[in-house]
């Protein structure tokens, strides 16, 4: 009797303990997750233009491949893929994935499976100029798409393409059903998006909200009942909405709000895995910036380390090259190229013929050393450039800051109407090629820089599939560009996402926003 009671007690305690720990960690089903986004332009993935569009689209649609926590590709619609040779990619599709039903195209219960033909149709739709997709160029290396069987699709590229998986995993190149696009028309499809993703569209009110509900048939059942994307164009208001409990997640947090939010226990902050490259670029064809000595001297004239620390604190990392941490080609050893040395700068400028004039400003042949730094209107960039300009002026350089509206700024950069400017920020794996290959002069190479050796390396790196070999080439090209002082790298800026502490299993957005993936399934605790 005694023993029985004892055993009973032990069992009861054990059950209670297991149940207790179980309850604390058990994901809860249900609830509506509200996410603040700055804008939602369109629900047609192939015409989407921003990360905010991607955040919404990656719930409604499936891409072949998704991006995992560690920035590596993970399965999504394709469960696996392989490269039988350098030009061929074969994707094996998940079976039993159905298009959303209960809409104008697929009535309730009458949907069909997503098959290889859909993949072929979608990629070809992006590649058709009449679609007007901005991702046309990103896929232009694709030679053809072949359907092997219902669940196997082959992509053949024109040249070896180590970067093919980068565009393939963008929500902008998601898989769409042909009959929906054709029946609804392009404009209709952009409003009534029908995909195969974890959530399906309930309602889209432009500039206001997108309401989604769980796709019961998804291969991994979403824990959330609904997801609502609320359009809040102002960053500060989005943070206020988070604090007021109106939304659970704000996908863009202004840098100066980050430190304040860090102290709030009700809010979790997530830092982006990668930082955006920010740097000053030279137009190397505009005098006097066509002289290496002048460029080098300007790079030495300002204390960029302190400027970055002062403006950003922990929210940015000093950059010494264009390729950011976590990407192939990241090279911290470039630090040695960027000393802060005002006296050395003056000596170099003296060698170039610049001497102090009667007013103390440096001049050559009666002409001042005028440096106007053009930047778009964005507070953090303006602050950092202001610090740099001030330090340059102390040395006698006639430096100033020109704040431009974004359209004017980008037109000036592309037309070469520049000397020194806040550069474009292409940070992906191909950024180096975009910004410094002479093929891209007048488009993404705003430096009007062409160096045959660099061109050769970048072209070679772009077709080198082996990552280790590519890293060597990429680093060499980057070092040459930096030695030519085509840019003055400033910093890698991290993006922040703030979420209510009750949001669990959340992974910050990288390319797409994974709310339900092989790695996670977001849920809300009470």
């Amino acid at each position: 009797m005694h023993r029985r009671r004892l055993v009973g007690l032990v069992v009861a305690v054990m059950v209670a303990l297991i149940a207790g720990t179980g309850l604390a960690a058990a994901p809860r089903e249900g609830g509506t997750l509200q996410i603040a986004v700055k804008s939602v332009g369109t629900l047609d993935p192939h015409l989407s233009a921003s990360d905010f569009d991607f955040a919404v689209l990656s719930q409604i649609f499936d891409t072949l491949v998704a991006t995992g926590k560690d920035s590596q590709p993970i399965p999504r619609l394709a469960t696996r893929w392989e490269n039988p040779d350098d030009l061929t990619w074969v994707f094996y599709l998940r079976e039993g994935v159905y298009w959303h039903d209960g809409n104008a195209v697929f009535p309730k219960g009458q949907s069909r499976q997503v098959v290889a033909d859909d993949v072929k149709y979608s990629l070809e739709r992006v590649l058709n100029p009449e679609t007007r997709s901005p991702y046309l160029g990103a896929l232009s290396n694709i030679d053809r798409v072949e359907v092997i069987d219902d669940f196997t699709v082959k992509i053949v590229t024109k040249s070896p393409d180590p970067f093919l998986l980068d565009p393939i995993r963008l929500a902008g190149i998601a898989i769409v059903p042909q009959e929906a696009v054709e029946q609804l028309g392009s404009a209709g499809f952009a409003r009534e998006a029908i995909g195969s993703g974890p959530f399906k569209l309930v309602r889209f009110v432009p500039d206001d909200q997108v309401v989604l509900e769980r796709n019961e048939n998804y291969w991994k059942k979403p824990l959330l009942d609904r997801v609502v994307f609320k359009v809040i164009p102002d960053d500060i208001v989005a943070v206020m909405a988070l604090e007021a409990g109106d939304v659970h997640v704000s996908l863009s947090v202004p840098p100066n709000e980050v430190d304040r939010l860090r102290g709030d226990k009700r809010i979790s902050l997530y830092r982006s895995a990668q930082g955006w490259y920010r740097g000053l670029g030279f137009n190397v064809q505009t005098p006097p910036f066509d002289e290496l000595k002048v460029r080098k001297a300007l790079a030495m004239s300002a204390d960029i380390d302190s400027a970055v620390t002062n403006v950003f604190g922990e929210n940015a990392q000093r950059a010494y090259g264009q390729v950011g941490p976590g990407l192939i080609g990241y090279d911290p050893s470039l630090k040695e190229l960027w000393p802060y040395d005002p006296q050395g700068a003056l000596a170099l400028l003296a060698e170039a013929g610049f001497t102090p004039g009667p007013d103390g400003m440096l001049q050559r042949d009666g002409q001042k050393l005028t440096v106007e730094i053009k930047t778009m209107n964005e507070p953090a960039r303006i602050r950092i450039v202001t610090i740099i300009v001030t330090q340059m002026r102390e040395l006698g350089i006639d430096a100033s800051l020109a704040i431009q509206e974004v359209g004017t700024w980008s037109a000036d950069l592309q037309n070469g109407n520049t000397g020194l400017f806040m550069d474009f920020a292409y940070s992906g794996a191909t950024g180096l090629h975009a910004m410094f290959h002479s093929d891209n002069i007048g488009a993404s190479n705003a430096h009007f820089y062409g160096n045959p050796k660099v061109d050769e390396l970048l072209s070679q790196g772009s077709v080198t599939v082996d990552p280790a070999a590519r890293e060597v080439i990429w680093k060499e090209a980057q070092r040459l560009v930096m030695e030519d002082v085509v840019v003055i790298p400033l910093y890698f800026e991290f993006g922040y996402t703030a979420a209510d502490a009750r949001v669990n299993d959340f992974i910050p957005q990288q390319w797409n926003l994974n709310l339900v993936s092989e790695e996670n399934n977001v849920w809300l605790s009470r």
Partner: protein
Amino acid sequence: MGRYIARRLLAMIPLLLGISFIVFSLLNILPGDPVSIMLSSNPHITPDAETIAQLRAQYGLDKPLMTQYMIFLRNLFKGDLGTSVYTQQPVVTAIAERMPATIQLALAALIISTAIAIPLGVISAVRHYSWVDHLCLVGSLIGISMPSFWLGLLLMLVFSLKLRWLPLSGMGYFYNGLGDVLRHLVMPATTLGFGMAALLARVTRSSMLEVLGQDFIRTARAKGLHEKMVVYRHALRNAFIPILTVSGMQFGYLLGGSVIIETIFSWPGIGRLAVNAIMNRDLAVVQGTVLVFTLLFILINLVVDILYAAIDPRIQYD
């Protein structure tokens, strides 16, 4: 009256054409190309020259300016305002979808501002130089000079973040009940209406003062009419023309959309659409919104002119 209205409506056509030409020319003088801006604002792609050229050709942006304008005009007469470069949405749809939000907000702001301004203006005039008048003067000065975004943020801080009485931002919908609509409407409409109320109160006061000094008011008082009757029946009605003019103009501005209010309160109206389009050089959308603004402005002025005749029988058209 019918002929007058018809004449006014016909006169709109050259005006709209002229404005569309000016907008078209101005946007083409501005540096910046919609396709390049769209491509370079997307961090995941690098705009190569070939893609830019292909997309520009698709949008007809590679054609000579006059040809582009002629195409625009031809489509305009078919009721087609073109397609947005950014969203691929027909401009007509984009505007039609946002119009109800803008009208809702503008009407609410108009109601709030007239409800505050006219009584205050009348009281200030009737008791001019009294403490009420001075208080109204100070209030109007604050209302006119206070930036609306500041008032908006202040209201949000107090009523949403601290007191949690009102939703912070966004628009309410009738399918959630009238309460949802009103709760979302209160703060943006008040913010928008406040500045207008200040101006309207000043106009009401000065117009009333002028009328109250006239002979027929003295006559009315001499007849032994009750003071309320004198003020509201005789004076206010005669003072109404300038008030109506200012209200009409202001309502036109409100319909043009208050970009700042719409941004702060995340209101899905037409002002935000227009400004984003200007930033992105989304020509078709800019053209479309400007044309609609112009049309509304002219129509409101026409309505105001017709109302003049209703208020003051001495005013006759034809």
